[in-house]
């Protein structure tokens, strides 16, 4: 070969090589290793060439030709772990990517149900709008919570019956402040409507098991509500309905922060007339709320709150009930470092209640609470540490018939502290470990300790298995505690196992749980009281919420078996709060400019102690009741159907919302309890106050 030919061939081969280098490709498909869904991930070669895969996960990328026939590439998509591989040129690649584990704070490890539109927290949710759109919920966060799994309450009373627990086993918190009387109407038998105005509620959660150690003095559950915070633009709304007036305003204050406030006033007169109710009922409510948010500097914020709720109900001249709930609070939040923040809250609440039945009985009671708490969080990505302390001083007074001889007073101070660490043990296992200690000055037995643990295991990105176990203490009625300083707080041990499937279109939860009560208060001889009571609540729950563009379906079923030996029942008998089966189904049509919803709820009746007969007592010259076995009979099953709807339209360049609701459409006469006359000769059925009623109104939001 001549020298010239050699160079020619060398040149040709070089060109050929260059050509081959440019013509070399790698191609393949990228997918989620778990779901097999295609991923539009990015492929980067070691020399900096890159390309994104298409919507089907397919990619094709020019690469330099290597003698080895292989090239190093990195594949990445946000939210997934980066993968480095050596790819063989010419072969079609199949590349599965694994999800990047979520930071500890982003997973709800406990079996809580929260109200949020953030699916990323991977828990069963309702969003804020659903509080308005759930039929029969009266736009009340407490009523809306009745459709969450684990809440066994029938929709007549506001109070939450959580997994067989008594109504007073639930703690209610508002911006971290414990509210001892969260109901507008707190009657002897039921409590109606909450004092929390949904217009100013930012979000809330209902914890039914495995709840956080920052919550103390609750055996069965916690409802935690937070009010709207920093508002950056003026907003508000004005509503007028046959129930009265609703108004809300929030606006920024230049250079200071913002203000959020609401004012509501309710009258029953129009409602009574429209629904042709007989009798002279008078129903009045008034709610005022205000919250100033002051930004001291970038890392310090001050909040000042005020809340007032007034309520009066009267039936002609036969009786009247009036209550006032007021709250004043100050809270300071400081970001001590980029990932550490603390909030100090101090508050005073007062609750006054008067029940007056002329010429029969008059009860006046007052509950004053001073409380302070410090809550701190330390976010370490893999760990989310929370710790804090709280102290609460409470004074209770009750006076019967305006007589100082019938006056009852007690006061006590409760203190507690807690620590909780939520951390990621592996990519799929998130664990919560915490403990709470608390003590009450009325008791001589020192501190109680509540260790609590829960775990969430991500079977897949959409399927989560949760297990929680914890020990909970509650001090109970201070008047009872004052009778025996040797009493110990009531306690319950919870174990719950849940399976959640959380997708964009569906929330599903199935749960099994067991709650074992210990040291419940049990009356002894001679008006003594001890800790001999026991009990249990065991059950199962199923919840599903399916969302579509045009409709939404919600279905919840709760099964409960519960027995208690408590108070004046010396044997293990069915729990008075045992609603063995409850079912709620809701269908909501999403219209172009509104919604239409229908809800049906049914529940088995609660147990009650039957009256077997009456017998004449010659000593008192009157009849005495002969009661059957404790809680051995049941009230009739409960059922109720509700409808509601809303329609948006424009008027004078403003959006106006028309809304309506029909409660108890079929006018079922649900029995809430039986009452007997003085001589026990006849039984009177006390029906639910929720007969068929129509509500209509208009709401004008301001943005």
């Amino acid at each position, binding site marked *: 070969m001549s020298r010239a030919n050699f160079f020619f061939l060398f040149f040709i081969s070089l060109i050929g090589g260059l050509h081959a280098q440019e013509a070399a490709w790698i191609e393949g498909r990228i997918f989620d290793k778990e779901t097999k869904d295609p991923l*539009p991930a*990015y492929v*980067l070669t070691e020399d*900096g*060439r*890159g*390309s*994104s895969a298409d*919507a089907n996960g397919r990619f094709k990328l020019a690469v330099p030709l290597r003698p080895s026939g292989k090239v190093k590439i*990195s594949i*990445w998509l*946000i*939210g997934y772990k*980066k993968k480095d591989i050596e790819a063989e040129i010419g072969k079609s690649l199949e590349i599965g990517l694994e999800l990047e584990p979520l930071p500890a704070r982003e997973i709800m490890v406990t079996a809580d149900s929260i109200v949020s*539109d953030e699916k990323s927290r991977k828990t069963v949710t309702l*969003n*804020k*709008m659903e509080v308005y759109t759930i039929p029969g919920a009266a736009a009340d966060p407490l009523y809306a919570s009745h459709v969450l799994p684990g809440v066994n309450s029938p929709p007549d009373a506001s109070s939450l019956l959580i997994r067989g627990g008594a109504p007073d086993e639930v703690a209610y918190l508002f911006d971290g402040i414990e509210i001892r009387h969260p109901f507008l109407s707190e009657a002897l038998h039921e409590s109606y409507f909450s004092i929390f105005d949904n217009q100013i509620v930012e979000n809330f959660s209902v914890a039914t098991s495995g709840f956080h150690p920052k919550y103390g003095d609750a055996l069965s559950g916690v409802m935690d509500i937070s009010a709207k915070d*920093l508002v*950056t*633009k003026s907003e508000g709304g004005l509503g007028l309905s046959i129930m009265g007036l609703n108004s809300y305003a929030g606006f*920024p204050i230049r250079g200071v922060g913002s203000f959020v406030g609401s004012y509501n006033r309710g009258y029953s007169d129009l409602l009574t007339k429209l629904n042709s109710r007989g009798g002279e009922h008078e129903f009045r409510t008034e709610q005022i709320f205000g919250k100033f948010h002051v930004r001291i500097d970038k890392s310090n914020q001050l909040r000042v709150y005020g809340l007032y709720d007034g309520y009066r109900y009267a039936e002609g001249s036969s009786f009247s009930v009036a209550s006032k709930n007021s709250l004043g609070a100050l809270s300071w939040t400081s970001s001590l470092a*980029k*990932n550490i923040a603390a909030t100090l809250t101090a508050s005073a609440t007062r609750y006054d209640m008067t029940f007056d039945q002329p010429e029969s009985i008059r009860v006046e009671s007052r509950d004053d609470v001073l409380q302070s708490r410090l809550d701190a969080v330390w976010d*370490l*990505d*893999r*760990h989310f*540490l929370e710790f804090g302390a709280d102290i609460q001083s409470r004074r209770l007074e009750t006076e019967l018939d305006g007589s100082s001889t019938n006056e009852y007073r007690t006061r006590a101070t409760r203190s507690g502290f807690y*620590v909780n*660490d939520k*951390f990621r043990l592996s990519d799929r296992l998130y664990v919560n*470990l915490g*403990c709470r*200690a608390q003590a009450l000055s009325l008791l001589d037995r020192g*501190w109680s*300790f509540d260790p609590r643990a829960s775990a969430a295991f991500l079977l897949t990105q959409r399927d989560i298995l949760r297990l929680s176990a914890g020990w909970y203490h509650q001090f109970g009625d201070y008047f009872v505690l004052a009778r025996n300083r040797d009493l110990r707080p009531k306690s319950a041990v919870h174990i719950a196992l849940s399976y959640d499937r959380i997708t964009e279109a569906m929330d599903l939860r199935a749960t099994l749980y067991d709650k074992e009560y210990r040291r419940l208060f049990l009356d002894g001889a001679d008006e003594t009281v001890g800790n001999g009571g026991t009990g249990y609540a065991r059950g199962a729950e199923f919840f599903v919420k399916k969302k579509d*563009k*045009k409709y939404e379906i919600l279905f919840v079923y709760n099964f409960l078996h519960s027995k208690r030996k408590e108070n004046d029942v010396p044997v293990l008998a069915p729990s008075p709060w045992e609603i063995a089966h409850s079912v709620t189904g809701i269908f909501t049509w*999403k219209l172009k400019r509104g919604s239409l919803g229908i809800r049906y709820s049914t529940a088995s009746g609660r147990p009650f102690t039957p009256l077997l007969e009456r017998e004449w007592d010659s000593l008192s010259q009157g009849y005495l009741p002969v009661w059957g076995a404790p809680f051995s009979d049941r009230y009739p099953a409960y059922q109720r159907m509700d409808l509601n709807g809303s329609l948006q339209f*424009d008027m004078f*360049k*403003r*959006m106006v919302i028309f809304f309506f609701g029909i409660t108890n459409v079929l006018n079922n006469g649900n029995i809430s309890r039986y009452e007997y006359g003085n001589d026990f000769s006849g039984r009177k059925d006390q029906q639910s106050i929720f007969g068929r009623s129509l509500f209509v109104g208009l709401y004008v939001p*301001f*943005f």
Partner: protein
Amino acid sequence: MMMRRWALSLFLLATVLWLPAAAVSGAQTLNDPAVLKSFQEAKTKWQAGVNAWNRDLFKEARDLFLGCLMRTKPENVYLEYYVALADLQLASYAIATEDMAECERAALEGQQYLEKAMALDPGFAEAEAVYGYLIGLQLAVHPEQAMILGLKSRQHLERALAAEPDNPRIQFLKGFYQLYVPEAFGGGPDSALPFFEKAIALFEKENIIDPLKPSWGKDTALTNAALIYKEKKNEAKAIELLKKALAANPDYGQAKSELAALEKKAPL
């Protein structure tokens, strides 16, 4: 005594289980010349995409930004921001071509990059503004979630605005958001115009030297303000603003075509 034992065991447990916190990102610069070159190419492509309203150029720019991001350690919040900015354009383009699946993908993916950027630098208000805008774009895909998405979008934009009221791009994004909010909800051209005008005034004062820092938007703010004046039949003002837009960016296609149409209609 029992209390002390409990506290000690908890402390020990915590010590065993904690891992060191992730290091916070360092200074935001691009030290690798190859990455810097690639970044500049990406910015040029992105601008060319805006000028010609071309999906492929946005996609190419996005790929280049992504490549830079993958090659940069520690994570660079500006690169995350630019990937999301390209996603914003891709989502907008997808709405115009009624490709709702692509719109959702781009909007959601862009949000994820910005979430990372905001977690690394909570004071990065401009990232929050783009984040709010991307949530707003999802409204085109999920009109049934108007109340929730609208509220969230507005909250982020307002928060960004409160944090950096003198940032022209945040003013512009807020104006653009207002433009597409129905009048019954307080939006519309009249409510958008003050934001565009504020943005234009702020752009006049802005002088960004660092190539990594966002500097886009003057041409689009002027053009959008011009379109509102055109709607209001103030064509002279519209022409004046379009000429300013072309002075800022002579290749901006939309300004060119709008100016040509207006001048044809009313030759000066």
